[in-house]
């Protein structure tokens, strides 16, 4: 009953015509930001923080606006994944695998509606999880030490072998390229620079947004130039838009499972939405009976990563609010916003500032409903992007990519790097090497290395420390199963035919 009373308090704070207007504004802005390649949720929230201050908003209104932008961007990321095969932000990476093939089949509208509903389910379930279990879940972070984190990242890499690709060796090669790129920059354990050749821009390593936009968007431009605009991947057939009730129905269980996985990944500090959507997708592929259709436009392959990444977005708020540890890049920005508003997240926030916490939770629920309304009935507007011929669309995408990447650190070096990744992506695709594992290598490689080396420092180099807890052992077993199972199952499965154009 306490929870209901608190929730009522939250809605009391968050439900006024003005805050509702802010929620709608935030959702629209967030969706646009998420859809633009290169501009992810964390940039989006960061760019809009000054807006909150210029409007002179109080703490609650500012939070409503910013969380709406946050959730909006998580929704928006899928749009360019599905329509352009370019992830709008890093968690939307997995949505390209089935979303784009489905759009190619002329079911772009279905894919968008289905992913919108999946996003809603993920977001809603995560918010409910946050309400019921936040104080309890805060303890989970205490159970994960370096050994456990290492096993968790290992699990992610071991399941890579089953990724959408015709050739597992090429997947592994791509993952190694990604891991290699991740080694560039300051070594966190010794503080010494590696592979930077004295270049200050490389000290922080390669930003994965630069890699994503380069490998996906810029490489696409090169293909476009090569083909003189004919047979471009961009632009898909479009039939009339209906609500794909059958697909939604068939994916209900998928959404529930994916939400759970995503939420747990979000709760773990440092794992975040990308790992959430990845594990949700791979998990769903493992249990599905129609495995071989994953990568060709399977509705479950769209529902799983979208439910997973939106659930992770909610889950990431748990450690941020209860421990002050941001669970993802965007929550780090929200944390900064809270601190600027003189609210210090931590173990006492729930008891000391209930109006802030419950106002935030209520605004999450409101934002989620607003986003469902924006994304399902109004999906036609987004699909209209397709009516624009590729020779207009592609230069536009390029321009947005350049602006988005430049806004990351304001340096032209990132632009050069992005073009470099575009060239790399062009040749890799010529050789049929998948680019998704490269991104995962860059995204997770450093965290995995840091965990391993921290574990070695703590245990004075004793490798048995890696198997020192039940959680770690469980994750190791899952990782081995994930790695070996596809090898034995291969004779029984048809290879997925990924649409590579």
């Amino acid at each position, binding site marked *: 009953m306490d929870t209901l009373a608190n929730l009522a308090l939250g809605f009391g704070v968050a439900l006024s015509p003005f805050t509702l207007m802010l929620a709608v504004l935030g959702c629209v802005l967030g969706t646009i930001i998420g859809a633009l390649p290169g501009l992810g949720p964390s940039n989006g929230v*960061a760019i809009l923080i000054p807006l909150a201050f210029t409007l002179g908003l109080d703490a609650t209104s500012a939070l409503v606006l910013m969380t709406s932008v946050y959730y909006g961007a998580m929704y928006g990321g899928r749009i360019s994944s599905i329509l352009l095969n370019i992830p709008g932000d890093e968690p939307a990476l997995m949505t390209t695998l089935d979303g784009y093939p489905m759009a190619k089949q002329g079911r772009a509208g279905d894919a968008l509606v289905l992913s919108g509903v999946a996003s809603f389910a993920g977001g809603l379930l995560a918010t409910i999880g946050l309400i019921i279990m936040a104080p309890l879940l805060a303890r989970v972070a205490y159970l994960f030490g*370096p050994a456990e984190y290492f096993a968790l990242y290992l699990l992610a890499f071991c399941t890579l072998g089953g990724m959408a690709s015709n050739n597992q060796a090429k997947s592994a090669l791509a993952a190694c390229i990604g891991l290699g790129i991740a080694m560039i920059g300051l070594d966190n354990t*010794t*503080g010494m620079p590696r592979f930077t050749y004295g270049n200050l821009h490389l000290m*922080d390593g390669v930003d994965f947004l630069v890699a994503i936009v380069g490998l996906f968007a810029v490489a696409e431009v090169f293909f476009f130039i090569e083909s003189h605009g004919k047979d471009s991947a961009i632009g898909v057939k479009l039939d009339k838009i209906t609500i794909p009730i059958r697909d939604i129905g068939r994916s209900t269980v998928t959404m529930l499972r994916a939400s759970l996985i995503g939420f747990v990944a979000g709760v773990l500090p440092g794992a975040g939405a990308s790992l959430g959507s990845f594990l949700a997708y791979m998990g769903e592929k493992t249990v599905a009976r129609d495995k071989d259709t994953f990568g060709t436009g399977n509705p479950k392959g769209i529902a799983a990563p979208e439910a997973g990444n939106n659930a992770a977005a909610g889950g990431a708020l748990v450690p941020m609010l209860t421990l002050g*540890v941001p669970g993802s890049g965007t929550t780090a920005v929200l944390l900064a916003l809270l601190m600027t508003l003189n609210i210090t997240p931590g173990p006492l926030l729930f008891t000391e500032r209930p109006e802030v916490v419950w106002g935030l939770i209520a605004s999450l629920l409101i934002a989620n409903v607003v986003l469902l309304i924006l994304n399902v009935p109004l999906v036609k507007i987004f699909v209209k992007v397709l009516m624009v011929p590729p020779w207009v*669309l592609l230069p536009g995408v390029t321009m*947005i990519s350049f602006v988005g990447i430049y806004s990351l650190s304001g340096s032209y070096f990132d632009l050069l790097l992005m073009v470099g990744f575009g060239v790399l992506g062009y040749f890799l695709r010529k050789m049929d090497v998948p680019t998704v594992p490269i991104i995962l290598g860059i995204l997770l490689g450093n965290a995995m290395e840091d965990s391993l080396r*921290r574990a070695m420092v703590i245990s004075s180099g004793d490798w048995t420390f890696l198997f020192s807890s039940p959680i770690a052992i469980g994750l190791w077993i899952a990782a081995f199963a994930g790695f070996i199972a596809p090898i034995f199952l291969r004779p029984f499965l048809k290879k997925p035919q990924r649409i590579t154009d």
Partner: protein
Amino acid sequence: MHFSSLSRLMAGAAVALTLGTAASATECIAPANPGGGWDFTCRQIGKILYDIGAVDQPVQVTNMAGAGGGLAFAYVVNERNDDPDLIVAASSATTTRLAQNAYGGATADQVRFVGAIGADPGVIVVAADSEFQTLEDLVEAIKADPGSVAFAGGSAAGGFDHMKPLQVLKAGGFDDIRAIKYIGVDGGADAITQTVGGFTQAMTGDMSEVVGFVKSGEVRVLAVLTEERVPGFEDIPTAVEQGYDVVAVNWRGLYVPKDITDEQFSAWGEKLQMVADSAEWQEAMAANGLAPFTKVGDDFQSWIDGVIAQTVDLSKEIGVIQ
């Protein structure tokens, strides 16, 4: 979303960005992504400067992350070296890295440190159920078996958080400081979860990072590294009074380009003093666990020179620099 309206939106954003950096408004560069201490410094000082009327237009905050602040430092030195409307957030991390030559050859005398208006006291923390009750317990345990205690902190090895336990152990007569285990994690709160979880035995960080956990009773602060006990936390003993002569505070302040005039430099010093004296800043400090620590102008610059010399000595000893 029709594409043409998208492009208009982006064009609008580009125009807005250009206007934001126009010369008339003060710009504060936070040399990190939004969310950290430097970002806080810029946003908070920027907001108060405008609220108290010290500047006539809202302060534009620019996040320029890269190389632990090195990118912004190089940018200021090379491209904005005489811009009187530019301030840059700085802290102990800035001077530590300058002392350790981590900014690619840049040196501290390439900019002017204009002032600090608050400091985050250094702390050594253990989990509430730890066997260590005093700083002496911890130091003696390490002396007996250096491998038995691992510290977690929010900075990379050789960073400011790493320096704190090294200074304490040196003061306690333990000279083999390279044997001390330290892992750098992503921020102070993460270091605490590792310590409360029992993966590391102690945490080294700033007071602001541990306040919430102290109040909820999950950790015990063995020592605060200030000269006097910190107001509001009078029951936490200092390292000095426990016989370890170590003072390490993470100051929050600003530097400005080198080639501005002396008048412009002292004007910034005075404006910072105004911020320091404002009720709004007092409130922000209290809410974020900062202790009063105001030094502005030439006074601050000479204090900084001393701190850097000291850091150089210690870094040489642990082998971070030659």
